[in-house]
């Protein structure tokens, strides 16, 4: 098809509410059409699989991270309970003072400890 003919078709295709199917076909047959290269679909699927693998790895990492955090938290809670029990056994009470080891202390003894006199 001659270039001028192609140009005419281009202009005529813009007319009206719907394009002329015959002109559209002519233009496509003349080579004015686009397509992706060979193997496009496979490349798309490979990209999707690759992304899915990365997402799986990330979620696996997050899962194992939260497992580790859970274990540390449990160990911490157990340590706090153990500490409270040992305070109760040694001091006979659980209060803020007993937690700080201040149940037997009076003001004079604290001052003497602090001033080293």
């Amino acid at each position: 098809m001659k270039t001028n003919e192609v140009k005419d078709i281009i202009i005529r295709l813009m007319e009206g509410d719907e394009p002329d199917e015959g002109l559209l076909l002519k233009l496509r047959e003349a080579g004015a059409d686009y397509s992706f290269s060979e193997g496009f679909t496979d490349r798309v699927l490979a990209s999707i699989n690759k992304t899915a693998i990365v997402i799986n790895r990330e979620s696996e990492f997050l899962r194992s991270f939260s497992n580790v955090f859970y274990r540390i938290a449990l160990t911490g809670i157990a340590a706090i309970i153990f500490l409270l029990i040992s305070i109760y056994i040694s001091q006979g009470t659980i209060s803020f003072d007993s937690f700080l080891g201040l149940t037997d202390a009076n003001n004079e003894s604290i001052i003497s400890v602090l001033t080293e006199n």
Partner: protein
Amino acid sequence: MQKHANKYKEADDSELVKAAIEGDSNAFGEIVNRYRQMVARTVKGMLGDTVFAEDLGQEVFINLYNSLSGFRGEAKLSTYIQRIAVNLTLNEIKRRKRFFSMFSRTDDDEVIEYNVADDSDNEGKRDAREVVNKALMSLEPKFRIVVAMRMLQGYSTKETAEILKLPVGTVLSRLARGQEQLKKILKARRYENQ
């Protein structure tokens, strides 16, 4: 894979979407096969026939895959894909425009990037695709998209309005102005070639 892919040849879009959401890559492969040319016409029509347009085409389908679970079937699958393609392409054009504006002081850098006025090769050597490509690249993006929809996809004004989410009147006026621009561009080039 080919064997499984054939199983979906006759399937309608909703069946394919359902199977793809359930993780069947063959179903999604069939969706890609079915709509790859439509996406190519939009992306390459807007950006030119480049390797970069191929990458953007892939991105369109990756976006589709990621948003497939949100597809409620209110619009046709083709319209949904076309919207993704148009949005990604327009974003890319805007990104390029920003990039080129950093190095250029002119306002119409988009036109400069695809300046087609220098047709040094002979008219006889150029094929129809080249004429279409150059004509499209000479247009402003807002006209280019409606012209590409009509010229390459064969969409009616109503269909174009639906895809671009624009009023029909706007599409009509852009089409008319695009046609005017095309007439000038093609006429000028015809004159240059004589």
